[in-house]
């Protein structure tokens, strides 16, 4: 199996989708000549030309909204919002328009739009360039929400998102772009709505997304040295959620930690905890521990930033806390 970086995997999915269907096109800020602020779209302009690889003005509302309009006309636009912090500028179109057109029209309209975005701390950008906002969208019927953590997943899921007939908000994590991983030689679409069990285990389940998948795998290895067997599950699609796999895992292990980089309060981990405590109530041997960023806007100074967002150590401590309960 070939190896790709996460960045290359995104690019490959885009390129293949662009080749496969002329209705697919990409638009966003600085995605053409510069190849995007994360260098994800590099080379696409050369292959597909400026009609299909479109730089836009700084106008997140119009970017998303024009994507919606084109999608309704049968295109499959992929729009890039440079940092997910700037999704705040397009919430109206995402929430009131993209998510609702289909229901409001009584099923006449389809919105096959993909909104790619990225974020994440770890590089001292300050408070406005590193938020993790996926939880908001899980609260919005009509949207689908994906957050991919590996090269293989990001490629297979992005393909499915592009060819899904619904608006999909597709989260990438900034610090994952350079990581490498094996991918199938042919792109294999990964259905939306299926979790991935990264590691089987018997004592605790860690349900993690994005960067925290990797931190959790690290924590799991550490825990194993202490004789704790950890199962690591990545929902990958946050909406719709693969409750069966997640709840099934916790029923097996009887303990659970949720882990994401987003602020813990009101985060996706809360939704997970709510679902899991309900579905695995009779199985649970310990309260579900939620790991997420501490409750503060992200400060600039590295010492504070690193302390605010979670790492393997916090996941490991939480694992230990759940196991300490008899």
């Amino acid at each position, binding site marked *: 199996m070939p190896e790709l970086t996460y960045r290359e995997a995104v690019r490959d999915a885009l390129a293949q989708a662009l080749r496969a269907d002329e209705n697919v096109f990409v638009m966003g800020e600085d995605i053409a000549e510069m190849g995007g602020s994360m260098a994800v779209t590099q080379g696409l302009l050369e292959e597909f030309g400026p009609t299909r690889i479109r730089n836009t003005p700084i106008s997140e509302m119009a970017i998303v909204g024009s994507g919606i309009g084109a999608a309704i006309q049968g295109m499959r636009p992929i729009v890039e919002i440079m940092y997910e912090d700037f999704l705040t500028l397009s919430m109206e179109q995402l929430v009131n328009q993209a998510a609702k057109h289909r229901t409001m029209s009584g*099923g006449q309209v389809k919105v096959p739009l993909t909104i790619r975005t990225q974020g994440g701390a770890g590089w001292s950008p300050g408070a406005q360039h590193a938020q993790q906002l996926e939880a908001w969208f899980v609260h919005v019927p009509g949207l689908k929400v994906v957050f991919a953590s590996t090269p293989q997943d990001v490629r297979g899921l992005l393909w499915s998102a592009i060819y899904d007939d619904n608006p999909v908000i597709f989260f990438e994590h900034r610090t994952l772009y350079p990581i490498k991983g094996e991918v199938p030689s042919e792109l294999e679409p990964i259905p939306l709505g299926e979790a991935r069990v990264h590691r089987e285990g018997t004592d605790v389940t860690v349900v993690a997304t994005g960067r925290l998948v990797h931190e959790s795998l690290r924590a799991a290895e550490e825990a194993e040295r202490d004789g704790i067997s950890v199962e690591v599950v990545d929902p990958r699609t946050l909406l719709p959620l693969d409750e069966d796999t997640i709840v099934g895992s916790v029923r097996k292990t009887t303990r659970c930690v949720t882990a994401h980089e987003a602020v813990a309060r009101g985060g996706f981990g809360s939704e997970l905890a709510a679902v899991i405590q309900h579905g695995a109530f009779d199985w649970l041997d310990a309260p579900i521990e939620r790991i997420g960023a501490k409750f503060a806007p992200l400060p600039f100074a590295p010492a504070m930033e690193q302390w605010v967002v979670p790492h393997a150590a916090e996941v490991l401590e939480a694992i230990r806390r759940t196991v300490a309960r008899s």
Partner: protein
Amino acid sequence: MATVEERAEPGRKKVSEEVLRDFFREMLLIRRFEEKVEERFRAGELPGFLHVAIGQEAVATGVCSALALEDVFASTHRAHGHSIAKGTPAKKIMAELYGKTEGCSGGYGGSMHLYDLSVGNLGANAVVAGGLPGIVGAALAFQMRGEKRVAVAFFGDGATNTGTFHESLNLAQLWRVPAIFVLENNGWAESTPAVQQLPLPVDQMGKRAAAFGMKLIEADGQDVEAVYLAALAAREHALAGKGPVLLHLRTFRLTGHFVGDPQVYRDRDELKQERETKDPLRLLGARLDLSDGDFASVDADVTAEVEAAVEFAKAGTDPKPEDALKYVYA
């Protein structure tokens, strides 16, 4: 201000009397439809939040008559007239207002969310300016595929204060997409008069086109012929690949903001005067020199159509509660 060439002068008679009579019929249909909506709302029959466009019928008829079936549009909270004028049968709209599955949005939308893809209605929008970005995208799709179609957004003067308006026109002009932005300037945003919400004099809202270098066409929104000619010119411009057009139409809202609005904020005399001098149906009737008999026969005809629409709607099917989940995803 637009040059004289860009203005469709009211005096310039280019439309045959026959066509004008058709316009009259449609405008009266819209009027009677909305009067019926007011009546049925007061009778407690219609749920929800309703806005009529009484006084603005010439905009709906004038613009939509200039469009082809394959042209698309997005409307606002004040959508009945646009929807009728673009070709959705009145009965399907009425059924929607009654929340029936026979409605143009299957009972899911309501008055503020009338859709009808079969005639290019991409949806009315209850968020001010919410439909504009989508119209840019529709026009972009037409441009990318080389289709000779235009995408039209209706919106009010209040909507021109939104960031969404600015971003949409800006992007449309940058990419020269075939879109027409119809500014239906009635000088009010709900209870807020022009002077409290617009930094430009109400008649100078066309200046907003200058911020984008966009083509501006202006016409008297109470004169259906002027509106029609202006819309034709706008469509021609857009289809010629010359880019989008801001079509600025000054019009008058001769009723409340919403059905049931007591209009405490409005000067009674001014309103009365506007009703007497600005009613597009009166103006067109006078111009056509309709006899009482002529008028009565058209009126009977459209009134019957509206009554039939109510019958159709009332006889319609209520959706099942759990159908709510039917269209969350495609």
